[in-house]
């Protein structure tokens, strides 16, 4: 493990590092079936145990390419992948339906994805639905009481991070010492598209978290809960946060979790300070005219 300099492309290995030894059963979620064995091969889903507790794993596998959709390679989330991930979540929710909060299985998202399928067929069929479906599934899991924890081990880029990560209760990230990438777009592309000077952007990105790339900046914006310093610390950190999420859900402190919780955290950490003021003002202004709309 000492030799590891990056975890990019090691989605499957990471599962084994985190879960109880030998406990991962690929596709082994109750009721979960696939149309074919190599369906959405860039997504790995299944059940495992963590400290003896059953959990659902949803991870990226950067190695295989999708045999039916050629643009889907190297961990890209294509349509099959997105729906496969969504199905894993829905089946997990169903498996624990009616159980008390404490018995809802956690969902662990292992994130290493460079994007969504950028192809013509994807647009013809509607790539946006696949990733949208997965996000809604995760939101539903979270709201029905499942702890949902994402851990970024490699690439968490733009739309793919939105779908695989940003709907979690909490997000952890491996330190950028391991090449971890979290961003919407590399600075060079931002510079090209916004017609800004790259030197200026680079200088600004050192201090301004809103467009800079990297886990540190997302941490300051509340987008990342905690940064994990080394791969061998992932398991403990994951277990700690799952316990914390269980506790917060039990205490009905769900406002401190999920995308909304990250908004609040971003304010605490000084990263997104206008957000709250905007919403407060909206509520005040509505209050002043509410009668017109509620009693019309």
């Amino acid at each position, binding site marked *: 493990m000492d030799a590891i300099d990056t975890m990019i492309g090691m989605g499957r290995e990471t599962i084994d590092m985190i879960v109880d030894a030998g406990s991962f059963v690929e596709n082994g979620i109750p009721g979960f079936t696939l*149309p074919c064995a190599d369906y959405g091969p860039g997504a790995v889903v299944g059940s495992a145990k963590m400290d003896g507790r059953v959990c659902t794993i949803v991870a990226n596998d950067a190695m295989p390419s999708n045999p039916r*959709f050629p*643009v889907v390679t190297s961990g890209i989330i294509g*349509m099959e992948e997105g*729906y496969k991930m969504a*199905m894993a979540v*829905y089946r997990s929710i*169903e498996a624990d339906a009616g159980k008390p909060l404490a018995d809802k299985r956690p969902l662990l998202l292992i994130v290493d994805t460079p994007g*969504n399928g*950028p*192809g*013509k*067929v*994807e*647009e*013809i*069929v509607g*790539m*946006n*639905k696949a990733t*949208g*479906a997965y*996000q*809604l599934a995760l939101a539903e899991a979270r*709201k029905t009481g499942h702890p949902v924890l994402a851990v970024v081990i490699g690439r968490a880029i*733009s*739309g793919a991070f*939105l779908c695989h990560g*940003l*709907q979690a209760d909490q997000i952890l990230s491996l330190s950028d010492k391991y090449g971890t990438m979290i*961003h*919407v*777009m590399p600075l060079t592309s931002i510079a090209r*598209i*916004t017609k800004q000077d790259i030197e200026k952007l680079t200088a*600004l990105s050192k201090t301004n*978290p*809103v*467009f*800079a790339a990297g886990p540190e*900046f997302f941490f300051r914006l509340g*987008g990342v809960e905690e940064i994990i310093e080394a791969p061998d610390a992932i398991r403990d950190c994951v277990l700690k946060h799952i316990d914390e999420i269980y506790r917060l859900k039990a205490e009905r402190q769900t406002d401190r979790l*999920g*995308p*909304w919780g*990250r*908004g609040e955290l*971003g304010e605490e950490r000084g*990263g997104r300070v*206008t*957000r709250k003021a*905007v*919403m407060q003002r*909206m*509520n005040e*202004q509505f209050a002043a*005219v509410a009668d017109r*709309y*509620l009693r*019309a």
Partner: protein
Amino acid sequence: MSTWHTLQERSFLESSARQRAIGLVDAGSFSELVGPLERFVSPHLPILGEAIEFDDGIVTGVGLLGKHPAIVISQEGRFIGGSVGEVGGAKMVGALKLALSIFESLQQGSAAEAEARRPIVLISFETGGVRLHEANAGLLAHAEVMDLLQDLRRKVPVVALIGSKIGCFGGMGFIAAATDVIVMSEFSRLGLTGPEVIEQEMGRNEFDASDRALVFRTTGGKHKFIMGDCNFLVGDTLADFRRQAQHVAQMSMIEIEGMRRIGSRGAVERQMKLVAFAADLRPRDSTDMWKALGNKEPQQLIAASEEEFQKIAVRWNA
């Protein structure tokens, strides 16, 4: 002057975000919330020397559709492509949160009253998604919006109205997909990846972004209607869109839930069938898909007026 009556016959495609917001709800009923006078401008654009807008490119407010309070979110494509940054994102999130709280407060009263006054959310999309100048804040706001869409499920219908120049792409393409009902005109587009990026990824021979006919065939209103991604295809006036919104406001929540493309295991299973269909077909062009679905003359569909088209188009049905 943008009076409501003159707005009704106005082209939706030509209308600004504010004109759309005003015209989509009943005459004189729109109250803008956190409007330009509040001057919540982007704190990030000035650092980059980029022009700012007093409403940050998103109009939010409340109006009425009959007795239904309508929470309106309307994006302005002319300001930095309708992109979503921290302020605009917060306005969207705040408006959706407001819809939820209106719903909850109405639940306090009689059930009949709550039903009769059930709020509705109208989102007039015109955006490419995240604003790159404040990308991280924009991205996080997208996640918040999605989270709230799930909160509103089976409570408050969320309607996507897509009829503007830029269409709805990027992260906002996910958001639109996750709404309850999608209304489009044939002049607008919905998707994830913009044409230029597809060209860049696949090469010009596969996808020529300057071929607008191809671009519209792939992501335009007519195609989305055939694929079932858009529930209603309407004409290009504000009145056309408003009438459709009004219609949705009166539908039952069960009916509305039935219009969804995604958001349940059953819906996902239906989509998986569509993906499998595409995997078998390997369409080189959306018209291959149209033909496979039983549309014999794709060219006729392209040329057809919106009304004619609705009569003859065969749609995907899982």
